[in-house]
């Protein structure tokens, strides 16, 4: 078991290392990417450019540059952006992370509650018209492009019906930290929360319903029924509990991916200064230090989440360790 955990942890670092090399190479393989040019401003003379290259070490061989960059990201943690000279990247990410976390956590609460409700209802009402109806709703939620939903939500709440009592409470796009004004913070995030959660509500409701129905024939359910427990109690207590294993492991991965920057479309559409938007801006601005740091930050979450879930599963199911 310990060997398995060690193996997983080692491979986690191998993945992170390979990932950073990959990003570094993608960046330097792109022509027209010259950080020095950006720093020099317009009308710079070739001499100025050469000087900047020298002072930032951009004239060194790639492996040296890579090591210097990684050193400044991981060890000294003082790496600075190329586009916004002098801006420390790590604090920038730390400032963006709470925004993303607030967005994702709120959406997660919505999607957990809503999907459990829909999944349970659909499973309980199996055989009636409600089941396919609820599943159809879940499927629709699953099929809507999130950026488009966000745009339409903006159209409705910021313009079309902005003057009606229905949406006049929606503040202009942006973000207010919770410490500054909790009410405004909440108002800012309501629409993004809903938009972000729609897809996941659809997905999780479907997963949960299938798992619930699957467990119908399991021994523990039959036993519970045999004990004379009510249908509702069997469903909510026993079946739901059993289905939670899948639910939670999926949730762990999804949550990690979103916190890692996967919520970028929602962040971009709603102008939320989170990690996803930061990564997106750095990618389109080809701001290497920020790209490297944000991608590693994101990958770290995803890799940790899947490692933890792997290890937990290995505890639960010894067969996996050998696979």
């Amino acid at each position, binding site marked *: 078991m310990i060997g398995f955990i060690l193996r997983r942890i080692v491979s986690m670092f191998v993945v992170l290392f390979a990932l950073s090399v990959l990003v570094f190479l993608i960046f330097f393989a792109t022509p027209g990417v010259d950080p020095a040019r950006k720093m020099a401003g317009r009308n710079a003379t070739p001499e100025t450019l050469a000087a900047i290259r020298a002072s930032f070490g951009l004239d060194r061989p790639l492996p040296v540059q890579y090591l210097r960059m990684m050193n400044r990201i991981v060890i000294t943690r003082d790496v600075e952006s190329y586009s916004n000279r002098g801006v420390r990247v790590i604090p920038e990410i730390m400032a963006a992370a709470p925004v993303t976390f607030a967005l994702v956590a709120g959406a997660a609460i919505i999607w957990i509650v809503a999907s459990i409700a829909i999944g349970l209802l659909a499973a309980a009402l199996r055989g009636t018209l409600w089941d396919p109806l609820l599943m159809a709703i879940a499927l629709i939620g699953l099929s809507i492009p999130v950026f488009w939903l966000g745009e339409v939500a903006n159209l409705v709440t910021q313009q079309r019906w902005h003057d009606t009592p229905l949406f006049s409470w929606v503040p202009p796009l942006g973000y207010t930290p919770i410490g500054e004004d909790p009410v405004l913070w909440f108002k800012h995030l309501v629409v993004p929360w809903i938009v972000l959660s729609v897809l996941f509500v659809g997905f999780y409701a479907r997963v949960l319903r299938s798992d619930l129905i699957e467990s119908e024939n399991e021994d523990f359910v039959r036993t519970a029924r045999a004990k004379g427990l009510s249908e509702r109690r069997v469903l909510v207590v026993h079946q739901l509990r059993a289905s939670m294993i899948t639910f939670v492991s999926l949730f762990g991965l999804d949550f990690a991916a979103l916190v890692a920057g996967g919520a970028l479309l929602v962040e971009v559409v709603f102008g939320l200064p989170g990690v996803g938007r930061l990564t997106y801006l750095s990618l389109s601005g080809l701001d290497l230090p920020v790209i490297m740091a944000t*991608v590693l930050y994101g990958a770290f979450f995803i890799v940790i989440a899947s490692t933890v879930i792997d290890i937990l599963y290995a505890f639960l199911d010894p067969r996996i360790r050998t696979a």
Partner: protein
Amino acid sequence: MGVAPTEPAIDLPLSPGPSRGTWATAVRRLRRDRAAMATLVVLVVIVTSTLLAPVYASRVAQTDPFRSNLSGTVEIDGSRVPVIRPNPSGLGSTPIGPTFGRHFFLGADTQGRDVAARILYGGRASLIVGVAAALLTCLIATGIGLLAGFTGGTTDAVIFRALDIVWAFPIYLLAIALSTSLLVQGLKIGPVAVDPNSLLLPILIIAVVFVPYVARPVRGEVLAVRQREYVEAAIAQGARRRRLLFKEVLPNVLPSVIVIFPLIIATCILTESALSFLSIGVQPPQASWGTIVNDGQNQLYTRPLVSIAPGLLIAVTILALNVLGDGVRDALDPRAKIRRRKRRARDS
């Protein structure tokens, strides 16, 4: 639960290799599935109408939806009106709105192009990218999965560490990174050069991004098949590897891949639209539903239909593919009906 949680991408049904009879049964089952058949009709309608885009453009709308038409005129209800009318205030201009008639059914965009015709053409691009990327993903992933699962050992380990790297990226971030870089230079693999404007570029990028999501379960499936008694027996008897691969393993893996194929198409279409929305997918003057939503972004407040119509079409197509996917799965593996869970792209 046969699939480890790190491989929840798509949970493949572990079915015994289907014989010819199973295929026939599957088709028969699928035909009885009314929901699947209904969505199949919807899909056929969407595909046919996008295929008929050139006919619509030339015969009905009589415009070239890829040519800007800044100073053209059009006849509406017997009178000639400019396609783009300068505003009376002298600031900006207003393209013709939806006529719900022959010309400019959904109006014109800022370039004076027929939005309806563009949506049809755009749908064609979206579908081509989606289907081609999905096909490519499944091909590559099946190949990799077979190779890894069948050879095992170091090959297996190396392949799966490589896939782990891709896996550790949030999907859109990887796609964006690849697009930003490749759009500058195009792609050169040996003698093959892919032009940055070519649809091939988004196809390749999207295909690569989703490979691990299919390859992991395929490998799991291969491992499972290998461990079956009759396969082990065949190996023990010294059966030829190639024969084993094609006679035993592949037929068992294929249905699983077919089951997830519609869902992969749906995911690929969504990814394409998101990339195009961020203007790093399909490149103008070509159009896809995503680029049209993006074009319509600025007009969202003035003429929302330009942005809403393609978005709705994406949603309907994805919905149809999802329902069809359910149908195909139920048809190929009725047991799986209740034990299905599937994964989508994790990003939003």
